[in-house]
């Protein structure tokens, strides 16, 4: 009975993934959609950083200006058709403008001319006042710590929780001990 049940479950688990055979890779999709032909469009394989803080990507890390823009247009993970639509909209602008206020050159032109490294900046760099993109709302970061210039990786919260936990545990232990001593005294006095 057990083996009978095992077989189909593991078959589903192992065989189901084998039905797929391609990739959802946004940088490569940009290259193919825009017919980019320069030699190293995704310079040294770091294409993810035009949107993400690290080249491994990941949830919560698409906070670079172009990443914030495509998310504002509704792009979510793995949905390549939506990326294609956004790129087509950028390319259809006449003249190209979106992104120029941030990097001095529109996003679509930076992509096509293989200036991806320019886009991999965490902040806007093309404005006259040294990088401030006017009128941009605050970004949402994970983690409780904040710094004026960049997201912090300091694990500030664990220390505060440790103090809180330690304080409460200490209080609880002292209180329990005090109760026990009182109970012992009460028992002793009742015996006498």
């Amino acid at each position, binding site marked *: 009975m057990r083996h009978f049940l095992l077989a189909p479950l593991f078959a589903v688990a192992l065989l189901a993934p084998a039905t*797929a055979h391609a990739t959802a890779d946004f940088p490569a999709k940009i290259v193919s959609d825009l017919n980019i032909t320069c030699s190293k469009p995704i310079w040294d394989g770091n294409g993810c950083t035009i949107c993400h803080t690290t080249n491994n990507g990941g949830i919560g890390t698409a906070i670079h200006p172009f990443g914030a823009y495509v998310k504002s247009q509704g792009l979510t993970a*793995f*949905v390549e058709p939506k990326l294609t639509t956004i790129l087509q909209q950028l390319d259809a602008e006449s003249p190209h403008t979106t992104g120029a206020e941030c990097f001095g050159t529109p996003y679509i032109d930076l992509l096509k001319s293989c200036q991806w490294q320019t886009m991999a900046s965490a902040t806007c760099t093309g404005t006259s006042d040294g990088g401030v993109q006017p009128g941009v709302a605050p970004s*949402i970061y994970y983690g409780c710590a904040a710094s004026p210039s960049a997201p912090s990786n300091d694990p500030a919260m664990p220390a505060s929780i440790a103090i809180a*936990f330690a304080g409460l545990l200490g209080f609880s232990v002292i209180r329990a001990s005090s109760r026990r001593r009182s109970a012992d005294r009460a028992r002793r006095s009742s015996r006498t």
Partner: protein
Amino acid sequence: MTSWLRIAVAAAIAFASVFFASRPAHAFPWMIREGYTGCNTCHADPSGAGILTQYGRGMEEVVLRMPYKKDADPGKMGNFLFGAVDLPEQLLLQTDFRNLFMTILPNGGAAQFQDILMQLDQSAQLKVGRFRVNGSIGYAPPTANINSNFTFRGGGFGATLTGAPSDAGAIVARQYWLGFDIGKDEEFLLRIGRMNVPYGIRSIEHPFLVRSVTRTDTNTSQQHGLTLSYSGEKFRGEVMAILGNYAIHGQAPAGQPQTFATYDSPHERGASAFFEWMPSNKVAVGASGLATYANLARTDLDPSLNSDQLGRYAFALHGRIAPVKSVVILAEADALVNSQPFTQDCPTCQSHANNHFGMAGLLQVDLEPYQGIHIMATGEVFNGHIHETNNPTYDTTTVVGWIGAWWFFAPHFDFRVDAVYSSGSAPGASPTAQGTSLLAQIHGYL
């Protein structure tokens, strides 16, 4: 060993467990088939999910997992570390591991494989008298692209204590709270800390539309606040004053000063509540409500929102019924409003609000043909009327179907496979829900 020393050692173990090793993802509303209408007998969280009580560990052995011999005595096998260590009754410890292998076949896109270490958590609760300290802490590894179509990543980044997920991953803590039991039978529990939001059916499937669009799942949607719960024979319920999710914060645009208002902008304030009436031990019906306000909408979760103030309102009715022991039916219907202020849509400069109105529904049938084996079929629907500032008003409908099998094959271990098809992507829903997903996950706990 003196009792003082025993308590000190127990406290040290709890402390060390919390800081060196968070949340077990148990939440089985279909346990009503066994006559368990409430949650607090098996879970430390009175509304379900999270670390198991000693009684809950015994029930997992006796009524949940596949039995290989008939025995009404749970023995020690279900205890922490399979019973190798006898914990004092004041202390609960639980270490959880959950891994998911997922194949995503998006509509119109290419396939993607993901291995997600969903959970590597240590949970603990210490109860001294009527005081409780409860918390979970875990590690989420960084994303790693194994090859062009296979990614390994961690889960729970929305509950991270550390900053933005970096190359070193993140420390996550889904729950941590202080509690005080009130009442003759400790039927009330007052808590302060980071806790699950009391709303709707508390189930383990965090991508369910009714959970994700209301942001009330038990994965990463916890909020900081104050709750009061009641667990009675015929009624149970919980009300929460929501003070904000401090696992996220707002960051000023480059070059602009970071102020407290900016830091605080995405933190929601408001309240949520649910109550459930159990007319019998096989039937439960309930209602929920949630109302929050934040100065900055979570555009990272729902890109159709503006980076502006947001009022979120949700109301739900739900039911759980076990007509026969082998079948449990769960149902929930939600009404949703996301309301943002009037803005001008230039160049026509027409003023209008960015409002979302929606209905979400869930119907799940859980069939247990043999103890320890569950076959689950779930249908979900979302219908929304979206009024975005920069886009025409439109209606959107998303239909999702799940079919799955779940096998509690050994003490402390379960294995599950699911096939999920979604016709679209509801605003605010899990982005991976669009298209077809094939899931295989294994879960173990100590």
